[in-house]
Each structure stands twice: as C-alpha cells, then as structure tokens.
C-alpha cells in the first residue's frame, strides 16, 4: 500500500508520540476497555468519582515528584496529609477561631504552612545535616504521624476531628461545585509544570538530579535547590490535605496511611526515574490517572482487595525495570 509523504509524516509523529508517552497510550486503552467491559464505569457518577479520586493524590504526588527528580524521595508527604488534616480540622472546628469567619481561611493556610514546615525541616536535614533523604523523610514521616495521632487524641474524643464548618467542604466540590477542586488541581499542576519546564529553577532541579557535582562546579546552588524542592513537596502535601480533609469532612490522623504506595507507584509508573534527572509533572499526572483508573476498575469489578496490592507491586517492578532498560536503550538509540 502506497502512502503519500503527508501520511508518512503523520505516521512518524504518531510513532514518536507513542514512544515518548507510552503511559498515555496505556491509559487510553484501559479507559476504552473499561467503557466497554466494566459495568457502571461510564455512569456520570463514576466518572465524576474518578476525577475526585485522582485529585486525592494528584497534588501531593506532584510535590513528591520534585524531590524524586532530584534523586531523592519524600516519605513524609503522606504523614503531612494526616498531620495537616488534624491540625486544620482543629483550627476550623475546635479552636477559638472555629465559629469566626477567619476560621476557614486560617485553617486552610495553616494546613499548607504546616506542610511547608515539615518540608523545610526535611530540607534542613538533607542539606545541613547531610542525611540521605530516605532516612530524613522516613524519620519525619514517623514523627508527623505520631504527632497527628497524638493531636487528634487531645482535641477530639473520637479518632477523627469532626464538626467542621460545612462551607469548607466546597473545596472538595460539595453542593455541585465540582469545578473547584478541579480548578485547584489544574492550577497547582500547571504551576508545577511551568516551574520545571520553563524556569531557571526547573533547570537547576534537573541538573542537580542528574549530577550534583557537575552542577555545583557549574555554579548551580545545589543546596538551595534541594532545600526548595523539599519545601515545595511539603507545601503541596499541605494543599492536598486541604482537599482531602474537605472530602472526608473531618480531620483524620490516618489520612495518609493508605496512599503512600499509590503515590510512589504513580510517580514511577508515570516514568519519572528514581535515579533523578528525568521525568516530570506530565509523567506523574499520567501515573496518577493510571493508578486511579486501576483502583476504580478493580473496585467496580469486585476484585479481592488483596489482589490489587500484588498487582500494583508488579506494575511498579515493571516500571522500574523499564526505567533502567530505557537508559540502556537510549544509549543505543542515540548512536
């Protein structure tokens, strides 16, 4: 079959698009397959749910991506979710500010800033105390989790901190204001993408992740960059906590417990390299969508809860394997 030059050009660009964005193709296939074969998948309720479930981890995953791009890891993000949730709920429901008009805005602000504090502390541990991020964020994760549980036990008789003002829930789209959480997420994602792709800061992040020694000698402020990334990760986690708390309509000290695996799986499957230096926000977005789709489908199909853990583990293994093999393929491809 003879194809003209225009068709050839389109074929080539399709081919390179698929090569550069493999996860997107997987997502499309998965989505179409689910529309056809999974019962109740296409209902407006489920599709809306899909989006809200994705937002559950999207913002925090973007924050962690910053750190992973640097060759580090941030385990504390999920603990920040729990801690900020409890603290914010306290401010909005139990503190002296609770019934005032200031309650909600200060609550929101405090949740984000608390995330920033944890992020900053992580940054100091890594940059000043020279701890590997693995250890530093594992430690802060344990401390933050402990604090969250402790705080919740003080301010509330129940495990969760209840009694939040209903106006607050609009952040998660209650009352039909679905666009609010979507908007918040899109703005955060767009900001993160812009930061990494177009600014000098973004270049520094990638350079430091690729080779901190070369970057240092070339005048990149490596320490400052690492610190800022950990700070950003904390802030994004704080922002996620705002959404998640609104969605659950209470401050939960266990908020972050179940999502750590999903976040890391999303980042790795999405294509950001665990070694640092390659990947980005786009990849993480794909990864989050993919994981969310997977969770959703498995739920609708009624598959055993234990199986999905296994499935995700295997997917992460495959993704990590591809990460390493791609590096070798690139070596041969460019030649």
């Amino acid at each position, binding site marked *: 079959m003879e194809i003209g030059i225009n068709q050839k050009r389109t074929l080539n660009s399709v081919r390179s698009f698929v090569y550069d964005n493999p996860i997107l193709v997987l997502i499309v296939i998965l989505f179409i397959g689910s529309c056809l074969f999974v019962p109740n998948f296409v209902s407006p309720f489920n599709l809306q749910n899909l989006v809200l479930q994705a937002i559950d981890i999207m913002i925090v995953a973007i924050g962690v991506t910053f750190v992973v791009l640097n060759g580090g890891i941030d385990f504390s993000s999920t603990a920040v979710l729990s801690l900020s949730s409890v603290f914010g709920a306290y401010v909005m429901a139990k503190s002296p500010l609770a019934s005032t008009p200031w309650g909600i805005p200060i609550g929101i602000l405090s949740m984000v800033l608390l995330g920033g504090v944890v992020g900053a502390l992580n940054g100091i541990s890594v940059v000043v105390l020279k701890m590997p991020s693995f250890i530093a964020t594992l430690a802060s994760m344990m401390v933050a989790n402990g604090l969250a549980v402790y705080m919740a036990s003080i301010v509330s008789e129940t495990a969760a901190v209840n009694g939040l003002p209903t106006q607050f829930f609009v952040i998660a789209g209650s009352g039909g204001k679905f666009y609010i959480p979507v908007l918040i997420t899109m703005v955060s994602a767009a900001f993160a993408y812009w930061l990494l792709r*177009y600014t000098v800061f973004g270049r520094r992040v990638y350079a430091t992740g690729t080779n901190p020694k070369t970057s240092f000698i*070339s005048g*990149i402020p490596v320490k400052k960059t690492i610190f800022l990334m950990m700070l950003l990760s904390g802030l994004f986690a704080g922002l996620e906590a705002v959404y998640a708390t609104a969605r659950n309509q209470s401050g939960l000290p266990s908020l972050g417990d179940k999502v750590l695996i999903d976040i890391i799986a999303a980042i790795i499957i999405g294509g950001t390299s665990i070694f640092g230096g390659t990947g980005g926000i786009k990849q993480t977005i794909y990864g989050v969508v993919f994981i969310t789709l997977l969770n959703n489908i498995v739920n609708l199909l009624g598959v055993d809860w234990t199986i999905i853990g296994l499935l995700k583990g295997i997917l992460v293994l495959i993704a990590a394997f591809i990460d390493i093999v791609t590096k070798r393929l690139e070596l041969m491809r460019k*030649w």
Partner: protein
Amino acid sequence: MIDEKILDLKDISKSFFGAEVLHQINLEVHNGEILGLVGENGAGKSTLMNILGGILPPDSGTMELKGLPYLPSDPKDADKARIAFIHQELSLFSNLTVAENMFIDKLPTGALWSVRFDKIRTEAAEYIKTFGVHTMPDAQVETLSMGIRQTIEITKALIKNAEIIIFDEPTTSLSQTEKDNLFKIIAHLKKQGVTIIYISHILEDVFFLCDRIAVLRDGHLVGVNKKDSVSKNQVIKMMIGRDINQVYPTIQKNIGEIIYRVSNIQQGRLVNDISLELRVGEIVGLFGLMGAGRTELVRCLFGVDPFDKGEIEFKGKHYRKLNPEICINNGIAFITEDRRQEGLLMPKSVKDNIVLANLNNLQQSFGMVSSQKEDQEADKVIKELNVKVQNKNRQAAKNLSGGNQQKVVIAKWLLKNPSIFIMDEPTRGVDVGAKFEIYTIINDMAKNGSSILFISSEMEELMGVCDRILVMNKGRIVADIPKSDYSQEKIISYAIGGGN
C-alpha cells in the same frame, strides 16, 4: 613469527543512523607486534575497537582470530577469546579497594562461595610490587589519583592472561614515572609474545613503542606503515588530510597588570603556602608530577574544596572563603580534570550541558529561560569550537567522542566570557587538530584580556602555549620560569624536586 596474522579484519563497516563511521576497514594484526592506531577524534578508532571487543556488532565484514572466525556478541566473548580492552575512561569501583578491583572479574572463592579476600590481597600486593605502584591492596580506589587508578586498570587486564591487549589512550593521566613504568610493562609483555594494539594521540609514544602504525581518517584506513618507513609529519598529514605547519599558534598580545592574586593558600598536605599572580592577557602553565598538588590547588582556587588559610584577591576584592557560584559571578571559570564525573551531565543533551553555567543570564521575566537565546548561544560556541554534533538538542553528551565531550565542557565556560580561566588538563583525550583549535581559542581569549591558568602534564604543550610556567612539587610552587628560560631538563628537574 612476527609476520604471522593473529587478527584479520576484512571489510568491516559500521553506520549509526545513516552516518557511516567505519568504511570497509581491512586490517591485519601480526602476532606479537605492537600496532599503533592513530587518528583524529571521530575517526573511528574507538568504534573499531568496540567492535573488536564485542561491545558493538559490525554492520558488515568479518573478523578472524588465529585463522578461525571471530564473532563476539558481547565483551564476555572477547574476554574468552583472550582479548583485553583497557578503556580510556576507567571502569574502577571507587568504593572498593585496590585488591577487590583488580580481581573483580575473577574473584577466587572458597567454601560456600565466600570470597577469598586474603588470597586477592596477597596477589594484589605482588602485582603492586611488580609494577611499582605507590599504593596498598587495601587502599580505597576513590582516594587514589587518576594515574594510580589507570595502572590498576591495566593490572586488571593483565591478570586475565590476555593474548591481545588493546590500550585506548592509556597515558593521558599518567605521570612521567608511571608512563615509563607502563612502557616497561609493555616491553615485558612483548617479550612474552602478547600482541598489543596501542591507541594514542601522543605520536612520540606511538613511534617509540610500536612496530607498525595504522592511521584512520573519517572512518577509512588511510595507511599502515612500519615505524621506520614513515615520519611523524607524514603520519599527521595522513591523520588530518592536510599539511600542518605549526602545532602551536602564535599570536601578538599584550600582557597587562596583575588582576588575580593568590596569597598563602593552605590546605592539607598538598596545598602548602601557595602564592601566585595572574596578569591580564597572561597564559600561565602549571606543571608537576602526579601528586604534586596541582589539581588540589585549583580546586581550592575555585572554591570546590575549602582552603584552611590564605586569601585570594580579584578585581579589588579579597576572599577568604569561596564557592563556585561566587567565582562564576566574578568572571572565573574552571575546567575540571574529570569531565565525566564533574564536567558534564552525561545523559543530558549537548545543549543542556552548554548552557548549564549560564542559566542566570538566559533569564527573562519571571525566571523563565529564553529558549531562543539558549539556542543561539549554544549554536555560536558549537561553531566556534567545531564540536561534532548532529543534533544538539537530542544528542546526549555521553554519546560524543572524548575530544568532543571536552569541547562541550570548554564551550560551557566560553559562554561566560571569563576573565580568569582555570583549566585542569583541557586537552586530555583530544586529537591533534582539535588541540590546535583549543590553543587558538586560549590565545584569542588571552588577546582579549583574559588570564589563563593552564595545568598540563604535557611539558611540550605548556612550553608552546604559555608565557610562563609554574612548577609544583609536594604542594609547593618551586619555580616560576619565564618563556625565555624554557627548557625541558630545567622544568623536569624542578618537578622531581631537585632544582637550583
């Protein structure tokens, strides 16, 4: 015996994505000879050797080893065929010891697969003694200088009892003593009947060691001659395809005032109360043997490592503490000795590497990088330095030849228009033609008022390019020799530690 063929390459060709890198190479290697292989960067030497070593398959052509077909599908096949490859870029594990590195491919095991560390330690000690290396079996490789590491790399291959050993630029980081040692080892190997293929830019060494010399140019084998039937100039002409009238460019320039002053810098054992000055437009060489402290000194000067005492004066300001950022902001540039680990972002594109030190100046509003400016600047220096790259945005630094990689590092700093340029072995692994280009650039920079501090282990190069040469020995500057007083004997004797 020396005319018997051990290796016969017939019509070997290789292309990478449309670009032909080797064109029907027909080469015989005689049993027991030392065959020199020379050519410019990008001529195809490394590719040819990679094919021989099983790292790459040829597109067409055949190879015969001792009369039998030789088709390695990976380096292990080459290993089994008793072909050893000593690469230009070392592949030692810096966190392991000398003994562990030497035996990493053949760790002797005892009961239950446990490694016989005692055995490798004793054997390593023997090799260390035989080859006269200044180290111990338990020394961590990351503490050792490049020179000693290279010697260990060579020992590693010798342990494998190779019949053919390929040396790819082995002397680039060796001191004179270590180099003499290497040549002794090679002579010893020749007596044992080992065949050697010796790739090097240093033609004096090639002529000294080799029986025959093969010249590659742009993927073609231009000629193979017995050493006695060809002159150095003829070889150079074959390499670059044109006459080269001079190795070192000459230039008219003025040397001005003192612009950079280092006073009593102290750091550990290797930087011992160093003081020096640089004048506007001056090219100052820094010579010394391995371990003299040159690299340690310049790393202090650029703030990569902190110094304990002393200060640096530049443009009227005094500094007791430095870091690369401060230096760069003040117009100082630094080319490190180890470009792979510290000079380049290997997996990143050529363009990303070139703009790395200059990001701040490419900023527009909101901290965004101007991609137009990026492109323009990168193209400019690529052209200026004649970097051989097809697509600067997609080709990664790790896929360039050694010489082109070095050019990318220089390009990166050139963008900053530095007033002080510190270079640690800038022409290491760079071929004759490209060296000339680099010397010309250094001269042009000096003419425009920059000052250059030039570390090199090649005395001839320093004598050809520099206005004066500082000689270091055991962490001190022991001589400051002006151009009019240059002599190889004088410089070397200061470096060794004698001296008037």
